[in-house]
């Protein structure tokens, strides 16, 4: 089953998001008020160990399980997109918390926060044309 492994990794991811309290609105507020090390520590350790791992992959040309080289896709170059998009995301993050639906007891919340967005994406392109 090709997709089973991704389901398992996803379950681990969901447990991690909740048990580390990353999805907690309280933790997010604590972070933006600089009143706790928790979130900064998590991001810091993830990024530092990520950088080391990526360097190791590049240095030794480590292949994936299909034998293909592991490639890192460079992001498109733009300043406006990243700073504007990032700021808008950050505002939403502080306001209502990102990924809090992985909490699991709040599916209706998922529908409220994410479901209605799907039709919005049709519209999204209009504003994209205006800025880009």
């Amino acid at each position: 089953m090709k997709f089973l492994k991704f389901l398992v990794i996803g379950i681990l991811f969901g447990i991690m998001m909740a048990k580390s309290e990353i999805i907690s609105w309280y933790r997010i507020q604590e972070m933006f008020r600089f009143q706790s090390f928790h979130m900064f520590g998590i991001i810091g350790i993830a990024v530092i160990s990520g950088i080391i791992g990526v360097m190791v992959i590049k240095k030794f040309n480590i292949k994936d399980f299909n034998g293909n080289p592991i490639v890192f896709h460079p992001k498109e170059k733009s300043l406006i997109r990243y700073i504007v998009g990032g700021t808008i995301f950050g505002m939403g993050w502080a306001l209502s918390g990102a990924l809090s639906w992985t909490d699991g007891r709040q599916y209706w919340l998922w529908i409220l926060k994410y479901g209605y967005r799907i039709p919005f994406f049709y519209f999204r392109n209009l504003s994209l044309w205006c800025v880009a």
Partner: protein
Amino acid sequence: MTEFFTQSWSWWFTGLVISSIMFILLFFGQSFGFSANLRTISSCRGAGKNVSFFNFNWKSQLWNIVFLAGAIIGGTLAGTVLNSNEPIVISPSTVSDLQELGFSLPTGLQPDELFAWESVATLKGFLILAIGGLFIGFGSRYAGGCTSGHAISGLSSLQIPSLIAVIGFFIGGLLMTHILFL
């Protein structure tokens, strides 16, 4: 062993789990970026016909949808069988700041003032979630990634665009927390 799963995880352990998930996905030939799902879902619904942004091979991103389904299952497990049912421990100064804003002492992972049914049923409560959701959805797609794609995957491969986006996340979060609303 059960205690290991029911207690909350330390920051250093969580950080290592996050980068491990990224590397496992890389090993399986995929990259770690959660909000790409929003684009995939829209594309399945036929957006590609009208909008070139969605005109990509959504089948190649099916794994990410499966990953998302797994995350919902994992989150459900964490919220039910793996739940210690103890209130979250956050910094006392955050508690007192939030009390000034009318939030009571934390009981669970999320504040009832924002996420309980009674709060969402009010106009203000509804708008907070709807506007927050809109910002997260639009912002993450426009910036080409969210916390997983930019802050973790992007920074790990030393990409400048991701650094810019992460700076943006903090500008937005600080604006919202300290100036606009909270």
